[in-house]
């Protein structure tokens, strides 16, 4: 067989190589021809080579590159080839690494735990027995101004009876998440009751109030969505915003002009960017602020929300059962229909309604998606059934008679009026909360704070932000701690000398990413009588003055 005439005869090639390659070539051709339809490919290659020989070269090169690329070991993305470490060096590094302790030393903050009042009786009644500091301090029948159970309806015998009947029928736990046989008939009925009472299409029950916002908001938001939030929101909402993956903007607390300006700016930016998909946009605020006790101007918020096409989420943990003439929350307070004004309402069963757990109110579509996408709902066991029937019963009582809510309003207003109107206290303290808030928030005046403790709200926030940006494990501000201890002294005097149990507004600096105001809280209960009320006023006043003059 003649060797193929591809090389000029002047180049000497060993005969054996020519022979092997020509045989290989021959068998390859045979093999290719044996494949049915292969002549099309061969013809095509021949023709393309005739038209443009360079193309063949490029293509052969591409094929080789493809094979090399395919066979090469995959390199991890973002992995940088540092200098190779020897085994000994690796061992040394492993040996050298020392972790920080899992939790910081508790000694500096431990006084807080010692000051926690441990209850020995029902917290729903006006008087409670408490002990502190591992039973070293005992107080019997002190006036209860610390309970969040403002309406005190769950202390009614009829409610306790319902709870006990439920335990006798359903046991305690529901033993499963809602999706897997954990939702009982009573759960669904409480959802109907809540939706009807607050005037929305649907309600979704949750096992714990603190988790709700942090579960509902991330269920609907993704990267690129926009959230505009009040800059004094509670930690529950701060957590939610952190989990939301969205772009978050803050507006000055309850400042509607600032909000409008911000919304206007965002709208202009959106028009300029001409996004391919319309982002979801939310305004997030609270019905009655957890940290301050004041009320946002809902009518203006609703107007802005409609004008700029936002959805409104209101965390009504402290306002449901409190605001409005029948306790239907902030919408009733401003005489607005809930359905049209607020898109998502987050509420708690553990505050005024005197049970446990929480819920989110809204329309049917939103609720349906919550039942699938909201983690605290789908991945958590249902509420115990007795908590559910208790809440249903309290709602029934609220619907039947409005005197409890009215009574609560009178008490909160009287308390508010006393502290706002008191001339002696005027130069020392500020009242932050609204007159209708059932939690009265007292704080030291800014100049007093500066004089006594050498810091202001702004400087505290700056210090906190600086620590936050450095990711310090221990976030401790000495001056703030001194004020906290000072406030605790006021609480102690009220408790020890007058038998009135009020509380500090507890913050955890580690988790607060927004400005905070240290202060005291006095919680009202609907069952408080006038005598008790004046005792509270006088004792807190005396305690404050006494502590300040020391």
């Amino acid at each position: 067989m003649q060797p193929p005439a591809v090389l000029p005869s002047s180049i000497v090639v060993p005969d054996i190589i020519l022979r092997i390659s020509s045989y290989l070539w021959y068998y390859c051709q045979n093999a290719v021809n044996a494949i049915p339809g292969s002549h099309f490919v061969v013809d095509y290659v021949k023709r393309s080579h005739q038209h443009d020989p360079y193309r063949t070269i490029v293509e052969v090169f591409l094929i080789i590159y493809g094979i090399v690329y395919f066979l090469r070991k995959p390199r991890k993305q973002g992995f940088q080839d540092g200098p190779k470490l020897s085994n000994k060096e690796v061992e040394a590094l492993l040996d050298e690494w020392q972790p920080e302790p899992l939790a910081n030393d508790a000694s500096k903050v431990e006084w807080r735990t010692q000051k926690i009042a441990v209850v020995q009786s029902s917290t729903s009644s006006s008087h409670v027995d408490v002990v502190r500091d591992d039973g070293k301090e005992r107080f019997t029948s002190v006036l209860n101004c610390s309970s969040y159970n403002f309406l005190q309806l769950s202390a009614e015998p009829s409610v306790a009876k319902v709870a006990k009947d439920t335990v006798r029928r359903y046991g305690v736990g529901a033993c499963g998440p809602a999706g897997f046989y954990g939702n009982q008939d009573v759960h669904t009925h409480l959802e109907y009751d809540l939706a009807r009472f607050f005037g929305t299409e649907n309600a979704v029950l949750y096992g714990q109030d603190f988790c709700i916002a942090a579960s509902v908001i991330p269920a609907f938001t993704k990267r690129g969505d926009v959230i505009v939030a009040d800059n004094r929101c509670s930690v529950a909402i701060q957590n939610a915003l952190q989990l939301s993956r969205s772009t978050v903007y803050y507006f000055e607390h309850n400042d509607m002009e600032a909000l409008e300006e911000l919304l206007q700016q965002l709208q202009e930016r959106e028009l300029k960017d001409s996004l391919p998909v319309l982002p979801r946009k939310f305004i997030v605020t609270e019905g009655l602020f957890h940290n301050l006790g004041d009320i946002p101007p809902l009518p203006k918020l609703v107007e802005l929300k409609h004008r700029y096409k936002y959805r409104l989420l209101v965390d009504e943990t402290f306002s449901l059962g409190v605001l409005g003439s029948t306790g239907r929350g902030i919408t009733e307070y401003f005489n607005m229909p809930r359905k049209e004004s607020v898109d998502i309402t987050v509420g708690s069963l553990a505050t005024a309604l005197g049970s446990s757990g929480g819920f989110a109110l809204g329309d049917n579509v939103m609720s349906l998606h919550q039942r699938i996408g909201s983690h605290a709902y789908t991945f958590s066991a249902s509420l115990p059934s007795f908590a559910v029937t208790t809440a249903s019963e309290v709602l029934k009582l609220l619907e039947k008679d409005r005197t409890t809510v009215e009574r609560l309003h009178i008490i909160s207003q009287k308390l508010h009026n006393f502290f706002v109107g008191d001339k002696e206290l005027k130069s020392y303290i500020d009242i932050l909360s609204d007159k209708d808030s059932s939690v009265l928030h007292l704080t030291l005046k800014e100049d007093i704070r500066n004089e006594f403790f050498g810091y202001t709200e702004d400087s505290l926030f700056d210090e906190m932000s600086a620590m936050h940006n450095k990711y310090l494990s221990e976030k401790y501000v000495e001056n703030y701690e001194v004020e906290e201890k000072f406030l605790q002294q006021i609480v102690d005097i009220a408790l020890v000398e007058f038998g009135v149990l009020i509380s500090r507004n507890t913050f955890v600096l580690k988790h607060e990413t927004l400005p905070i105001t240290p202060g005291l809280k006095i919680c009202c209960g609907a069952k408080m009588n006038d005598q008790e009320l004046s005792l509270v006023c006088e004792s807190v006043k005396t305690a404050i003055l006494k502590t300040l003059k020391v």
Partner: protein
Amino acid sequence: MSSIANLKVPLVEFPEQSVEDKKANEFGPLTSKEYLYEMKSRNGEPLQELILDTPPYYVVVITYLNYLILLILGHIHDFLGLTFQKDRHQDIMEKDGLAPWFSKFESFYVRRLKLRIDDCFSRPTAGVPGRFISCIDRIAHNLNSFYTYPGTSTMCLNLSSYNYLGFAQSEGLCTSSALDSIDKYGVCAGGPRTQLGTSELHISTEKLVAEFVGKEDAMVFSQGYGSNANFFNSILDPKCLVISDELNHTSIRTGVRLSGATVKAFKHNNMEVLEKLIKDQIVNGQPKTHRPWKKILICVEGLFSMEGTMCNLPKLVELKKKYKCYLYVDEAHSIGAIGPNGRGVCDYFGISPSNLDIMMGTFTKSFGAAGGYIAADKSIIDRLRCDLTTTNYGESVPAAVLAQTCTSLRIITGELNPGEGLERLQRIAFNSRYLRLALKRLGFIVYGIADSPVVPMLLYAPSKMPAFSRMMLQRKIAVVVVAYPATPLIESRVRFCVSAALTKEDIDYLLRHVNEVGEKLFLKVSSGKTARWDIEDVIKHTPVDCKDDRFFAN
């Protein structure tokens, strides 16, 4: 025959029944001493790697094909719907300048796949979720878009609730202590723990829990999800690393995400990959800056609720000590249900709890209550009491739940009603082993370890899920079916949650029906290294055989 009224779930009237019947319906009486098994401690011996049975190739192909058909039909449905039936698809379209709650793409899986089998989920129930569960009957209309309720309910054998030790009861010690606590402490707790939310009962429960799990101190919370979701941000920050099992529960993931810590996942239970990862991370440190990590926390679950597998604790403790990492174990499903004394994974492996840094668990499952706990050394808990968001801002646990928890704990330890706790522990151990071995012998593919009370049985094709669930409901058995995204795409499964409340005869009933349905649906696809057994032989021999570990080896 549908009127507006019965579009709502009815409140179920409770049937008149004697106290004995009620008790037996909630917790089946033990039929023979033969049907008890004492779980053995492993005395520090690590687990062998589980060999998972794989189905024949045609099953995999059919499963993918099944999804393909569903996806294609779904997209055609969407196209036609969005073109011709705009009014019925309002919720995924822009309206009045507002973006839809969920976009068409995000909700595709839910609208076009899950909705078809929605009748298998969220079945409303009533009464105690004990040995039997009363399911409220409902009729699905228009491809599950709405239901009507005829007002009746059906008692079903309960293989769905996490009632491992059978403490979901409305008679007995737990119930009476819960009732007493309502009298004394009221129905609700007064606020966060730092503000009137702490009662004596909280303190004593915490002591009891700490003692039970073998740690110095503990904290209790009102929700299991919440205990995890709001825990990590108090001990971790963005300069810390979390090494997490890929199958960890969402609550852990949410919690870690909230803390901002970097997360690296490792393949489920693969200790070699874990060791390599830890070494790599300590040597290389934080990404970009290469500064060393502040802390490294290994997060695992004691018993994985979808797989029935357990963490390899002896190996984890060894690694943790070697590389100075911290170890966090979520015992949501294992506490109470696992170990010779019901004290969870440490008890099971015979390892001292002092080797674990943080132990978390829930009271929802084995104890028939609600909420969760976190146990650790006293110095850590002391600090966490001041730092955690839940204790400072969230609600506290109501007294009745604590009373239920306390009493059930005391029964398990034998402090109350000696013997009862032990019987419950031995019954769940027997029931789990019996059901698991019997299913294996019948030819089903079952995941997990021998002693796990969670018995996942593989169904594969998504269309077999509703078929299985509905057929079981017809036979008055309540089961849970799970699919993607809770499991890998092709591994749809049914999850039997075994309970101490079930009798051996209940499991026989279950087995006969699973066998029959399994034949009809071609579910017996195990690789068949051992010959498939006849159902009568299984029921005859398995109760004895299941006490021997030899038969569980693949």
